[in-house]
């Protein structure tokens, strides 16, 4: 009972922190389970994957009608994320807990670096009269008070990053948005909001591929997953509200600091 409450509260914290910048709760939930609650790495990853499915479904159904999700780009990149997810899920058993924790430390540190490098960046938007091309998109943007158009560039790179994001998702229980969103935004011409919404749309299917494999191996404890999922759902709603009001610059700085601490703790645990 006490454990259930801790998991629920931990889910709220992880979901809240994660949704502040659209990272998903996994990057905070996994360290919480491993470092604070002493849960084995693979059990933590399995639980985290189920919370990612919930976050993806809720976020996607909530953003319908605003044309932010690029369905076609999402469905194309999903081919790569699910191949990665399947491979990651199968390979996870072959990798020692120590190595997985080190890998988590590396990815968290990379996340912090990405966050810091984007502190002052605002996204470039193309001329509204431009053609979106086969995979591009159009949506209404509040800040520009008009319809903005974008084209997708460097598709092979987007596919490669999606493959990596899919494997990381199943190995470490994080959504992979931390890799995809900056890459789509910085290199592939997709505006930040559209990249985040499309990534949130994709991670549900990606996480499902991994979660089903973990579930089949008996590594997902149903009541633990239930408590964490319910917590994450509450937390991410709260996070969205706060995120909309808070300053993006300070949020990024705060999250970068948290990620650095997570990274150091994971390395210490893996020693």
């Amino acid at each position, binding site marked *: 009972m006490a454990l259930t409450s801790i998991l629920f509260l931990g889910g709220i914290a992880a979901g809240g922190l994660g949704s502040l910048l659209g990272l998903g709760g996994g990057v905070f939930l996994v360290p919480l389970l491993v470092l604070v609650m002493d849960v084995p790495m693979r059990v933590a990853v399995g639980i985290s994957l189920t919370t990612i499915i919930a976050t993806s479904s809720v976020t996607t159904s909530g953003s319908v009608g605003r044309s932010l999700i690029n369905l076609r780009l999402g469905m194309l990149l999903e081919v790569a994320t699910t191949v990665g997810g399947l491979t990651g899920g199968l390979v996870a058993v072959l990798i020692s807990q120590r190595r997985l924790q080190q890998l988590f430390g590396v990815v968290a540190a990379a996340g912090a670096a990405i966050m810091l490098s984007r502190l002052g960046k605002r996204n470039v938007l193309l001329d509204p009269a431009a053609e979106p091309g086969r995979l591009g998109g159009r949506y209404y943007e509040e800040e520009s008070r008009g319809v903005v158009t974008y084209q997708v560039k460097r598709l092979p790179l987007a596919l490669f990053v999606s493959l990596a994001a899919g494997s990381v998702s199943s190995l470490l229980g994080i959504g992979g948005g931390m890799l995809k969103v900056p890459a789509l935004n910085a290199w592939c011409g997709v505006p930040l909001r559209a990249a985040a919404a499309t990534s949130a749309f994709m991670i549900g299917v990606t996480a*499902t591929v991994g979660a089903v*494999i973990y579930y089949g191996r008996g590594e997902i404890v149903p*009541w633990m997953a239930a408590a964490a999922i319910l917590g994450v759902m509450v937390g991410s709603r709260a996070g969205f509200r706060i995120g909309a009001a808070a300053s993006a610059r300070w949020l990024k700085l705060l999250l970068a600091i948290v990620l650095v601490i997570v990274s150091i703790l994971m390395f210490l645990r893996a020693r």
Partner: protein
Amino acid sequence: MSAGEGRELRANADDRLERWLGKTLGAGTMLATALLALGLLLQFAGVGAEVSDRLSRAGLIVLMATPVARVLISVAEYAGQRDWPFLALTLTVLGMLMVSFLLGVG
């Protein structure tokens, strides 16, 4: 039909598809949440450990089945639109999901 009209038709179809997908994901998550919450409540109340475990498991299965339903709807939509490249892509994703279910649950 001009290229512009074709694009408009496609955009409308995509909007409709997005709404359908949103509804499916929303309904699936709601059902899963209800099952998971009920399972936890029973666990807290201390009645029927077995029933509570089954409810949690059912909730997890519904949760994992929801994105599969989303892909199935996309497959049907692109088949209806005769959009072969995207039909092939969504079928591939469906195939990946099926492989993971076979390896995992099956």
